């Protein structure tokens, strides 16, 4: 008997077409601000997607993903400056370092639940920020650059980052789609719905939560590394800024937590309104952004995609 797998094929084709269009756009002469804006959207879609991969699928609200963004930024910067490694190799190693770090942090924090997990991950991120910020002064070394941060080698053109960010966005969306219909995905959803029942059904909860956490964290670390090279200059207050965490959370919630397209729609929408209002009302645009978010959440409490899915009456979490 043929199994029904609703949605997956239906959604992958349009996404693939969109991907090809995005691949071609820069060749048709898009440049400057637009190119930068697109790259920025890709980055946030990827970051929100990573957060969704972990928190959206397990229901564990990770409040410290920025830890890996910051560590990733610094790892890549240090490999390139101190080690003289090429960019792509630095990103590659960064990913593995973040994976190892998230295994250590995950093993301890993922035994906690609810608000306690959120607080623990938040604390881990803040602690790592302090390590980067204070190590130089306390140990009297010249390594992390303290509050002044680090400067990376001068980067290639914007088109390069457009494609790198596009790659990561594509990778995250692809992984999310694959995981949803995989054994891992079903285990994660079971944990989200009823963790104890999942354990009693044979789901090794801690193990697969950690797998999702490592995947999410290492990708966030890579993206942090890319952004560091893109902006060429990193300071702890920026790359470990809790606002980045909050942005990942808000974008995902806006779009619809635990859905494939939620982070895509949410991050695109959020980045666009931020840029739009930011250009028009330089000083108080955040008030307007906040207002828009409040209105959207009031009208669509499950997020944009989440609410649409609910209205269409599908039980599938995949749009």
């Amino acid at each position, binding site marked *: *008997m043929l*199994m029904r797998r609703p949605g997956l094929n239906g959604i992958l084709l349009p996404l693939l077409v969109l991907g090809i269009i995005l691949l071609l756009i820069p060749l048709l002469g898009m440049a400057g601000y637009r190119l930068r804006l697109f790259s920025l959207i890709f980055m946030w879609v990827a970051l929100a997607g990573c957060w969704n991969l972990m928190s959206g699928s397990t229901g564990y609200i990770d409040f410290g993903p920025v830890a890996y963004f910051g560590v990733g930024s610094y790892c890549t910067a240090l490999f390139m400056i101190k080690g003289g490694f090429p960019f792509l190799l630095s990103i590659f190693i960064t990913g593995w370092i973040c994976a190892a770090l998230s295994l250590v942090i995950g093993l301890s924090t993922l035994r906690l639940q609810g608000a306690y997990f959120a607080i623990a991950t938040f604390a881990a991120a803040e602690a790592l920020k302090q390590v980067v910020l204070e190590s130089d002064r306390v140990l009297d070394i010249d390594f992390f650059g303290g509050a002044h941060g680090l400067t990376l080698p001068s980067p290639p053109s914007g088109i390069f980052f457009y494609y790198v960010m596009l790659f990561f966005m594509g990778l995250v969306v692809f992984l999310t789609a694959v995981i949803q219909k*995989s*054994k891992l995905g*079903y*285990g994660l*959803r*079971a944990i*989200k*719905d*009823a963790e*104890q*029942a*999942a*354990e*009693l*059904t*044979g*789901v*090794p*909860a801690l193990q697969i939560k950690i797998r999702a956490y490592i995947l999410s964290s290492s990708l966030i670390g890579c993206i942090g590394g890319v952004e560091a090279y893109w902006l060429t200059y990193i300071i702890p207050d920026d790359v470990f800024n809790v606002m980045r965490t909050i942005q990942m959370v808000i974008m995902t919630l806006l779009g619809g937590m635990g859905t494939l397209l939620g982070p895509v729609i949410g991050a695109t929408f959020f980045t666009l309104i931020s840029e739009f209002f930011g250009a028009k009302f330089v000083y108080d645009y955040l008030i307007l952004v906040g207002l828009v978010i409040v209105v959207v959440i009031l009208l669509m409490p499950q997020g944009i995609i989440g609410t649409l899915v609910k209205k269409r009456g599908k*039980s599938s*979490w995949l749009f």
Partner: protein
Amino acid sequence: MAFLECRGVTKRFGALEAIRNFSFALRPGEILGLIGPNGSGKTTLFNLITGLYAPDEGEILFKEKSIVHIPPHEICRLGIAKTSQITMPFGTMSVYENILVAALYGQNLGMAQAHVAAERILALVGLHEQRDEPAGKIPAPLRRRLELGRVLATGAEVLLLDEVMAGLTPAEIEQALVLLKLLSTQATIIMVEHVMQAVMGISDRILVIHHGEKIAEGTPIEVTGKPEVIEAYLGKRYT
């Protein structure tokens, strides 16, 4: 040969001894009814066997090997699964997916094999019409069926059924009994039940537990005649 065995198991919650020096042996293929007044320790015993609690004293053996301090998901994979008194479906997942998860992880199958196994179980417990409905939205009697389907799909050899008939109408109990008889051909069952005619009718042996201790053991007829049992349920006056 004992299939599943408890030897002198004690479990304390603070000063309360929920299970005291409890021993029993389960024979392969039988249906063992576990009865006792509310708070006598039936659910605690199930939680000890499935690894949710660790005993303070004593041993729990499955196929001659100790399963104390083994985490619940591994005990499930070894072949012991339980339903919960309060049903805990994976609410946002469909009925079919609930069973699929159990097949995937309980039997540690790949996707393709798990789909085959899940289809079989779905038909067995008769939830075909509800297959695509979210498990959290189906009515309570069907949810109990789903719990049965889920433990079956884990491929467990020992099923611990905690009040699977609670809240069912007499007609639904009849259906449940038919299903249980069917299950007993595939697995060994320990069932906790308050619906007496059901548990007495279907069980090969009955174990009576009171204040965490075993007060009687035997066939349904032997057990109901024992003064200790009548006392535990009805008080001293009636013995």
